[in-house]
Every structure is written in structure tokens, then in C-alpha cells.
């Protein structure tokens, strides 16, 4: 009997060790570093690049195919989501541990943190924009056209612009009422957008339909939805960043980065990375992730000179920035 008991306890201990092992903990990210994290699709990793030292600080090897991430205002929580995942998972960076899982269901393709400290998710399974608070509680769902992808917040007008990927529609959601307030027709396979609030313009890029390849940025009037002009930015401009009267446009088809002034004139241009999808601003640095070249390019925003090129995991698809806490 005593022997049996002994074995039973031993088994319990082994089980405890095993279960603790299965809850895999990731390398902790110190609070005092400013980093850019890339979510890498092909090898299911997250690479943390220390932006001060300009080197790779850590790598998280994930078990789920995450495609995007969000950093919370607390600067410690990172929320990871993916279209094929049932949950969005909240990790603590300093602990390197999963702290919460949000039951979102499959279909989340994009998410942004709104000025109101709410999160808006684009859900392509439900074809809805879903609003969550930071505790992971869902507050509202708003119907959109099918396949919402790009989300753009207008903080001045308190509006959310939603681009439908396959259905040539731009939907506008009033962020105060969280109701759909309008929509207009745009070009097909639109992706990436920039809002020029001063001139009431929305610049929208895209991939182009079928065998056609998008060569232009389409500029629409945010009120009327009228196509005001096209700006050449070949090919497949799909990412936009606006800063100090300039728009940085990333075209993944030709690996080109354009610096364009607000009137649409090219200020600088550079060929960068291989098949770049994503870019971000951090500390006066422009970061571009090469999806095929598996690297993160750090550029000087002024003249688009490459400062450094850092290898990250395979297939970087999303960049999130966290400023150091201290």
C-alpha cells in the first residue's frame, strides 16, 4: 500500500513537470528595449529586433500560424492573431508567457488599436468589423462588405475606413455610434491606404485584378468617393505610411519604396528588400520587411538610404513597434 502511494505521488510529480513543460514559455523581452517585432508566416516565428542596437534581440518560436500582432498601451502585452486561429492570444513580453486567449473564432485577418484604446478586428469569416476592449470582451460587431482587410482610422473624424479586398467597396464606420455610416465603390483588389485628412483624400493601393497588376495609387475623395486622380507607383503599392507632408509607399511587385509628397510628386525612390509587404516607423527610422528576403531593412526616412539590414525569421508579414518603457 505504501509502495503504491509512493508511485502515485511520483506519477503526480512527473505529470506536473510534463504539464508545466507543455505550457511553453518564450524568451522574456526586457522592458527597457525599444524593438520592432516581425510576425513571420513561413516559419511561424516572431523576431524581436532591438532598434537601439539594431540587432536581433530574441526570437519566439510559435506553435500557431499567427499572421498579425498588436502591442497594447501597457507596452507589455502583445496580442497575436491569425486567420486560421480560433483564438487571439495575449502574451506578456517581459514574462514571455501566454496570459490570455480571446475566443475570436477563425477569420481574423487584421486588427488595429484605435485611439479609444479599443481594438477593431477585420473578420473575413463573419464579414464584420468586431470591436473588443483590452480585456478581450467583444463590444460590437458591424457588418461590412465581404472580405474586409485594410483598416484605417480617422482620428479627427472618428471614422473607420474598411477596404474590402475582393469586392471593390470601401465602407465607413462611425466610431462613436459604431454604425456603418457610408460606403463607396473603389478599384478591385485594393490593399493598403493612407488618409490625408487635410485634403479629405484617401489614397488606396492594391494588387490588381487577375493577370493585371496594379501600377497606381488611387486617390478618392473621402466624402463623395470620387476618384480624384491616380499616382503612378508600380507595381502593386500595398502599404502606406504618412509622415511630415510625405507619404511612403511600398510596392511589393517591384520591391520599390516611394517617398511621395502630398500632391503626388515623387520625392525619393529606392529599391528595397525582396517582395516587401510591410513597413513601419520607429524613432525616425523607416523599417521595411522583405517577405522573400526574410530581413528587416532600416532606412533613413529623409533620403531612403539603408542603414542596416537585419535577418529575421522566414516570411515577415507584420511589423509592430514597442517603445522602451523606461
Amino acid at each position, binding site marked *: 500500500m505504501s509502495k503504491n502511494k509512493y508511485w502515485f505521488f511520483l506519477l503526480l510529480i512527473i505529470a506536473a513537470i510534463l504539464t508545466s513543460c507543455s505550457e511553453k514559455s518564450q524568451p522574456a523581452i526586457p522592458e527597457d528595449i525599444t524593438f520592432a517585432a516581425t510576425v513571420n*508566416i*513561413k516559419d511561424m516565428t516572431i523576431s524581436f529586433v532591438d532598434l537601439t542596437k539594431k540587432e536581433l534581440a530574441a526570437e519566439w518560436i510559435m506553435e500557431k500560424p499567427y*499572421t498579425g500582432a498588436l502591442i497594447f498601451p501597457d507596452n507589455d502585452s502583445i496580442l497575436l492573431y491569425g486567420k486560421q486561429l480560433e483564438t487571439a492570444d495575449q502574451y506578456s513580453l517581459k514574462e514571455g508567457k501566454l496570459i490570455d486567449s480571446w475566443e475570436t473564432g477563425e477569420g481574423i485577418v487584421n486588427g488595429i488599436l484605435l485611439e479609444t484604446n479599443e481594438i477593431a478586428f477585420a473578420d473575413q469569416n463573419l464579414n464584420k468589423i468586431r470591436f473588443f476592449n483590452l480585456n478581450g470582451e467583444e463590444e460590437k460587431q458591424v457588418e461590412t462588405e465581404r472580405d474586409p*482587410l485594410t483598416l484605417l482610422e480617422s482620428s479627427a473624424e472618428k471614422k473607420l475606413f474598411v477596404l474590402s*479586398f*475582393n469586392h471593390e467597396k470601401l465602407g465607413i464606420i462611425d466610431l462613436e455610434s459604431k454604425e456603418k455610416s457610408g460606403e463607396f465603390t473603389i478599384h478591385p*483588389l485594393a*490593399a493598403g491606404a493612407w488618409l490625408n485628412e487635410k485634403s479629405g483624400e484617401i489614397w488606396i493601393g492594391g*494588387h*490588381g485584378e*487577375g*493577370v493585371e*497588376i496594379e501600377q497606381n495609387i488611387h486617390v478618392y475623395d473621402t466624402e463623395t468617393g470620387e476618384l480624384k486622380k491616380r499616382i503612378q507607383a508600380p*507595381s*502593386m503599392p500595398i502599404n502606406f505610411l504618412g509622415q511630415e507632408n510625405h507619404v511612403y509607399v511600398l510596392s*511589393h*511587385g*517591384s*520591391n520599390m519604396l516611394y517617398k511621395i509628397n502630398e500632391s503626388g510628386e515623387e520625392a525619393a525612390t529606392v529599391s528595397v528588400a*525582396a*517582395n516587401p*509587404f510591410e513597413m513601419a516607423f520607429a524613432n525616425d527610422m523607416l523599417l521595411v520587411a*522583405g*517577405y*522573400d*528576403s*526574410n530581413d528587416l531593412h532600416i532606412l533613413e526616412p529623409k533620403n531612403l538610404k539603408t542603414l542596416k539590414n537585419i535577418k529575421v525569421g522566414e*516570411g515577415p*508579414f507584420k511589423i509592430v513597434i514597442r517603445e522602451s518603457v523606461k
Partner: protein
Amino acid sequence: MKFLTNSLAKKMWLTVTAAIIITILYSYFLSYLFYEKIYVENVRESLLTEGRSLSSEYKGGPLTEDLREKIDWYNSKAETEVFIVSNPRELSACLPFEIDYQTLIGEEEREELLKGSAVEKLGYEKRFDRKIMGVIIPLLDDNRLQGIIYLYVPLAKISEITQDFAYLWFAAALIFTVISIILGTMLVKKLTKPLLDMKDAADHVSKGYYDIHLNIDSKDEIGQLASAFNHMSSSIQKEDEKKKDFLANVSHELRTPISYVKGYSEALISEMAESEEDRQKYLQLIIRESKRMERLVGDLLDLSKLESDEYKLEKMPLPLGQLIEDAIEKYKPILREKNLDLQYRLDPEVIINGDEGRIEQIIQNIMDNSIRYTGEGRIRILLSQEKDKCVIEIEDTGIGISEEHLSKIKHRFYRVNKGRTRSDGGTGLGLAIAEKLVKLHQGELTVLSELNKGTTVKIVLPLFEIR
């Protein structure tokens, strides 16, 4: 089906034919496979080489119009379908965005191409709506996939070539099949003919004609069988002759005493004997001949018993010296009567495992002969021990046997002098019986003799083993 399997020749023919056909079919499919594989491999190699050499024209950066023109020109001249693609959409560059478009290359292929390796295609391609053998060569500028060169050959062309091959093969196979079946049939006939001959010969033998001899020269199993058959039939023939001889001998041996008995008894009945003395003499003769017949029949009976498998010796440890001494005791009067000298030296320690009565019979039969054929001189009996065996030697100074008869002396009814009657009283079976008995005791009996000098019978028996 029974029609096909009722003879060995047909069975063998069927086997040979089936083996030929199976071999041909099998080798056809195998070589077809190899041929196709080698051909496809060849095509693949040449496509790769072609593609690599074309891709060497690419010097980095976006694809130039010049390069496109070169590839188009090459395509118009070469048999291979070649085209160049730079559309990032076709190259799956937008892949993570799940655009609903059938791209030319898939995700994994793009990964391969990004690594700089060529991608091979074999099978149906939806884009071309046909089966193809193709290779895709990446045009890489550092780690950017700027474009691809796609080279392919419709598989139909390959199968056309293998079809030609198939016709050629079919014709060759047909001729081969016919020739090999003819040769196979001849071979089967050659193989089975000796068997048929043997069957006829066996029929012949079973009808009682043993003088058959098969002329089969081959040294294989059938040849061996034939020689065994020949051996068997000659053995049967010899056995048959022996049997005939034996019967002739027996009847001959019996005829003499019977004619004696018949003659003297008739003489008695017709009162040819005049005096009582003569009658007594006749009756004595009749009794003697009857006794001889009795002995003869007794010996024959013994011999037949000994030759049957059921005959069992009642073995026990025997002091051989004692036994021989006892046996020769009863010969002393007759030896004295014939004035023969008896000498013996018997090792008293010899013990054998034997049947007492039978061992005595052996000694008796040999002693009978010795006494019978020794007119004067002596008879010497020696018993000695040699290793695990004992040797009995019975030596006389009798008439001896010439060398030509010596080898046959142990045969039943064998007589050195054919003309001689059995006036000496022997049945002609004594030595044969003695030898049989010695053999039953795992021993050996040899006769050594010199004409007019004497005969020595040597018996070697195993000693009794004390375990």
C-alpha cells in the same frame, strides 16, 4: 484441362511456354518503364540545361525587353515550349493575401525558386490543359524572384516515341515467342523421350523379359535413372537365373537319393537280392539315401529360414573355447576311425555374444566338410583373440580347392567336381548356411585353400562387449 495435364510432356511444354510468355511480358513492362524513365530523364536533363543556359542571359535587375525578345525568338526556333514570366502575380508574390487567382507557380514552388533551385513539373497542368514535362528556372536578382523561364514539352510527344518502341518490341517479342516455343517443344520432346523409352522397357520387364537394355547416354537425372533401371533389370535377370539354378540343383540333388531309394526298393520287391545279406545291404542303402534327403530338406529349410527377415538369433554371452571343445568331442570317434589327427589350441578367455545352437552348427558344418575331404593328415582348430575380435581357424590337410572354384565355394550346391555324386554325404549347403550364420553374428567367413594341400576356414566374430 485434363487433356493438357495428362502427360509430363504437355505439362513441361505448358510450363516452358508460360515461362517464356511471362518473361517476355515482364521484360516488356520493365524495359518500357526504364525506357520511359530514361527518356523522361533525358528530356528533363535537356530542359534543365536549356533553361540554365537561357537564364544565364539574365544579368539582374528587372527583366528587360531584350531578354523577352531573345526568349521569344528561342521559343520560335526550338521544339521546346519556352516562355518567360515576370508578373509577380503569376509568381505567387501576393500569396499571403489569398487572391483568387490560379497562379503559374505555387507557394512551395516559389520557395524552391527563391532558393535558386529549378522546379520540375511532370503531369497534368491546368494552365496548359495537358500533360507536360517541364522545368522552371528562377531568374533571381540577389534574393528577389524577378521572373522565371518556363520550359516544357507536352508528354504526348514522349508517349509517341514510346509507342514506336512498343511496336518494335511487339514484333520482336512475337518472333521470339514463336522461336522459343518451337525450341521449347523440341527440348521437351528430347527430355521426355528417355522417360517414354523407360516406360516401354518397364512394360517389357513386367512381362518377364529381363534382357532389356536402355541406351541412354545422358549423365543427368534421367540418364542416372536409366542406368539404375538397367542395373535393376540385370539384377532381376540374375536373380531369376539363380532361382532357376537353385530349382535345378534341388531337383538334381533330390533325384539321386530318390533314384537310389526307388531302384533298391524295386530290387527288393522283385526279389532280385538273393541273399539276406544283400537285402540288408539294400535296406541300409535306402536308409542312407533317405537320411541324406532328410538332411537336404532340413538344410534347405534352415537356409530359407535364415534368409527370411523374421529369423532371430537367441544371443547370450558364450565361452567360445568351451563350446568348440564340446562340439569337436563328438567327432573324435569318426576321426579316430578315419585315422585323422586332431589338434586344437583354444583360448579359454574368448567370450562372444551369440546363439549357442547356431555357433555349434557353424563349427559342425565346417568340421563335416573338413573331415569329409581329408583322407589323411590332421585337422587343426585354433581360437585366438585379436583386439575386439576373435578368430576361429579350422585347418585341414585335405584335397584342397583350386583357385577358380574358391570364389564360388560358398554358393549353394556348388560343387568343385560337377560329375561327383553326393556319395560323400554332403548336401552342398553346409558352407552357405555357415556363412549366413556368421553374417548374422556380424562376423566374417573366409576360405583359404591350396589344391592338394588343404583348406583353412577362418571365422572372425566380434567379442562380447562388457558395458
